[in-house]
């Protein structure tokens, strides 16, 4: 149980770091952990160019089990596509330009390293 709490915290602080990273790049955070019954989107943001960004964050404390982004399967990517469209539809933004990004957060010697990938799907 203790380990899961740790993983949970790691995930939370990972998302926080990515949010800060995005703000640093002049993106506006619209929503965090948007959840419906089909799944969850970690971060939804609006880029300075006016593109809606849907970001999946993966955090790991080591690379022992492979690169964090390797755990994003094709199925997960498809799910993210559907969720993104659902969010746009629910918020009356259907038809706007959007993009699905992924961010890997690696905790290495107490420092968070962010590996940000644009347009993964």
């Amino acid at each position, binding site marked *: 149980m203790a380990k899961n709490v740790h993983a949970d915290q790691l995930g939370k602080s990972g998302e926080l770091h990515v949010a800060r990273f995005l703000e640093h790049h002049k993106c506006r955070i619209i929503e965090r952990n948007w959840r419906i019954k089909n799944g969850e989107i970690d971060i939804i943001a609006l880029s300075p160019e006016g593109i809606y960004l849907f970001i999946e964050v993966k955090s790991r404390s080591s690379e022992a089990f492979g*690169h964090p*982004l*390797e755990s*994003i399967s094709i199925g997960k990517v498809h799910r993210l596509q559907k969720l993104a469209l659902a969010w746009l539809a629910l918020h009356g933004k259907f038809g706007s330009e959007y993009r699905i990004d*992924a961010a890997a957060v690696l905790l290495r010697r107490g420092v968070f390293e962010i*590996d940000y*990938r*644009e*347009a*993964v799907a």
Partner: protein
Amino acid sequence: MTLGATFGVSLFGLDGNLIHIEVDISDGLPTYSLLGLPDLALSESRDRIRSALLNSHERWPNKKVTVSLSPAWLPKSGSHFDLPIAVALLAAQGLIPSERLSQTVFFGELALDGRIRQARGVLPALLALRNSEIETAVIPFENFSETRLLKNLKIIPVKTIRDVLGWLRRNEIPEQPTVIDEEIKVDTKDFSEVLGQESAKYALEVAAVGSHHVLMIGPPGTGKTMLAERFPTIMPPLTEDESIQVSAIHSLSGDLQHRGISTRQPPFVAPHHTTSRAAMIGGGSHAIKPGACSLAHRGILFVDEAPECATGVLDALRQPLESGAVTISRAIGSATFPAQFVLALAANPCPCGRFAGRGRACQCTSVQVRRYLHRLSGPLLDRIDIRLQVLPPTRESLSSHARSESSAEMRARVIEARGRSEARLLPLGISRNSEIPASLLREKLRAERSAMVFLHGELEKENITARGFHKVLRVAWSIADLAAHEIPSLSDVQQAMTLREGLELMS
């Protein structure tokens, strides 16, 4: 740089094709897509390459990796693309200098620890590079010896991926294995060990001169197998080109190590009589492999207990016997292998094997005896020029202290006779007496007048058929070459007739 490229070779049958391998690394989720019709073994390359690179302390890109093998329409198979893909992958990451990669071909399967495993088909693959701009080939260390026959190609034998990178980065040439000269392979088998059987030995000598197919009929224990095993020792050695061709075929089947890489001795292949048709002529669904008859190319295919073969196995040999090549077609394509061999069949005269001499001990019924050899089909027997009876050796020959003639002595005669027949036949576009077309036998290459009169007489008496008529003449030419006669004399032709005496057993 996010693009890396180099070369590999794809093999289909004996035909190699140069494959341009490109690796592109772009941002995106870590994926690995392999384009260009890879087969299963090739699709599994990702995990082998990844582990091999990581265990060699190299970087694996956690990005979107696209590997393209072109020409894309050509189906590719085999694990030997691991090494070129790994090299292109490192080049795409900018971890190795890329100027050499466009003149180099890489060949080899990776082990997970970064070692490079021995591969099949290195020799035929490299033969495909003869007319390309490729100057260097990087191949597995264990396969180095088979490339000795190749000229105009720099070979870098490597044991691990570190060796490859050492060469690419720092121009360190890895140590080369010492190759033992096997050109003169000492054969332990020699005709001097066969006591008696002088007429059978003579018949094999004639067969070696003209590449005539042979059927030996005789009771068990008379030495049929012994004779056949020593047959290659009296054949003329292979020429360099033939040797490369034979080694290429054996490289594909992976038994080159047994054969000896640059040996000039004709191959001797003896499939068991239970062998399947696919094993005999070649086959396989995803990588077509040569069968026994192609492995015996330029050598001898010996089938012991021939009538025991499953129906159709021997008859499948009829096409290669006719055309000197086998074409095997499968869903993935068709491959052609050369198959010019001398067929040597051995058979017992009846199921119990004792129907010889007066046939006293034989327990078979007359019907059984008659049927037994008829299991060999007529069309197959038609292609066999020499049918000899191997009788039990006499008591004198077994106890005699006189040394039998050695293989070397016999071979010297065969080589001399082969020289004579080639001098005569090469201008006509053929090389062996057994290949002389019937039309030539009736005009340019007739026997002596008296001999022709004798043969026409036999034909009239229906002792021989028209086809038999030509076969006797071809064998007579080989006999004449051995005896240094200008053209076959009456006695040469009569001798050729007696080499078909085994036929009488069959009627």
